């Protein structure tokens, strides 16, 4: 079943992902989406009845779990090294409205 999604739909979706699309970019996705639909047909051509999803390249279970010892802590300076503004060692944001 073909789904028709328009530029507005993808703009809204992008906004949910915390970025914006220009009109051209949104139109481009509408076209790409069309191609995506065609590709889904290629996937559908493969019978996956009773087949489980493969999440990892290998499916051997592991057993390693890390000991509860402090091994790696960075200084406050390093934590803030990649921002220009800080207040008493905190990252700063304009007031968040929850």
């Amino acid at each position, binding site marked *: 079943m073909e789904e028709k999604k328009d530029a507005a739909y993808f703009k809204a979706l992008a906004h949910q992902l*915390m970025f914006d699309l220009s009109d051209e970019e949104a139109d481009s996705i509408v076209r790409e989406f069309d191609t995506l639909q065609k590709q889904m047909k290629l996937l559908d051509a493969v019978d*996956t009845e009773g*087949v489980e999803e493969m999440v*990892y390249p290998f499916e051997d279970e592991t057993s390693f779990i890390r000991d509860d010892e402090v091994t790696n802590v960075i200084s406050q300076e390093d934590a803030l090294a990649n921002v220009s503004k800080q207040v008493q060692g905190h990252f700063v944001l*304009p007031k968040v409205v929850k």
Partner: protein
Amino acid sequence: MKNAGGAAERCQDAYAEAQKLQEKLNDVITFVDPAEQLEHLPEQGLMRGVPIALKDNVNTKGIRTTAGSRILSNYVPVYNADIADRLAAAGAVCIAKTSMDELAMGGTNLTCFTGAAHNPWDVRRMTGGSSGGSAAIVASGVVPMAIGSDTGDSVRKPAAYCGVVGVKPTYGRISRYGIIPYASSLDHVGYFTRSIKDACISLQVLAGRDDRDMTSSDRPVPDYLAELSDDMHGKRIAVIGNVVESIQNEKTVKMFNDLMDQLRARGAEVDVYQFDEDLMRAILPAYYLIANCEATSNHSNLDGIRFGVREEGEDMQAIMTNSRTKGFGPLIRRRFVIGSYGLFQENQERLFRKAQKVRRKIVEAMMECFRSYDCLIAPASGEIAPLIDTKADQDQLSSDYLVAENYMAMGNFSGCPSMTVPMGFEEGCPLGINLTCRPWEEGTMFGIGRAIEEITGYENLHAEVK
């Protein structure tokens, strides 16, 4: 790679040469002056004094790491990737962080925020991607080894276009800790060299368990160089018929078939193996879905708040949105939208999970083949590197080239070790051949690669940049 004295001179020469070629190749994002590393060079090391380059998705403490994206153009890591530590411990000296497709999401190396990288064999042509900068810097003779990463073919395709050895080992063989991810269940750390012997030594240095990466393997690391054998007797090689048949270029096919005859002459059993065609055509769509979905999630941390280029805004949402809009290139944003779409609850079953099921079928088909064969082999690409100025849309999800140009993701789905080695030339530009072996059988892979290297005579091939 010789470990003789003169390390400082060698590294400084490489550093200078890289800068000299930068204008033509644009394969470097950040140059790294080797002086400090040379001061702290260890007494011993398998790669002592060898100049290398790192793809710019490898975190290097104190040295800018951008992953080819504007949003990270000011990001300076406070920690080292595991492989950066291993290479330093082995005495290698990094002289450059190389160009890559933005966030490793591309196959052309045209989307880096610093511009397109150029192929050393013909600077009008692309290097391929996403590890194009690393491929170029090795192919141009500047350094004998450079790190890349391979999620769908991002080491193995540029290796073919640039005429170098490109290795993607088994999943988990090399730690991914500190490598900026693309798609975590498909990402592999890989690398480029100009010879199989150097490939063996490099893997020795890079491989090994890292407890910080829960997917890294604790299998012991063999001495690949010591175990290297070019004896083809008893080796059973399966040519992927579907790939060869989908290649339009007859010269490529002939070059490949001749090479297969040579392998037979050395005692290898070489048969043509057919996979289900629908399965082969499903590789690219399955790869795109899984990769885009995982990537969208992986890059949710790039928001300008704790690191990266922050664009101002009146609240958190505005800051995140402005930073990501300005910081991500258009291709990436489009990929994220598609990726997110595939993960929505109502779509997941149909799209993301369907792709994951197809992944299983592909891997099962490969393992079935590996019951009777030691190696899957096919040309890495049907054509030489395309011209950069082709007006074709860089990221067309087109149904052409589904098989010939995009089958190598099989190696990522399955985690199998896979390698490209130079095969021959057309129009003065290289073509490559790709081989894939069972998990953990890098030894077999290097052995067959070595045999091919001897047949072609392309050991230490490098381009004179014009």
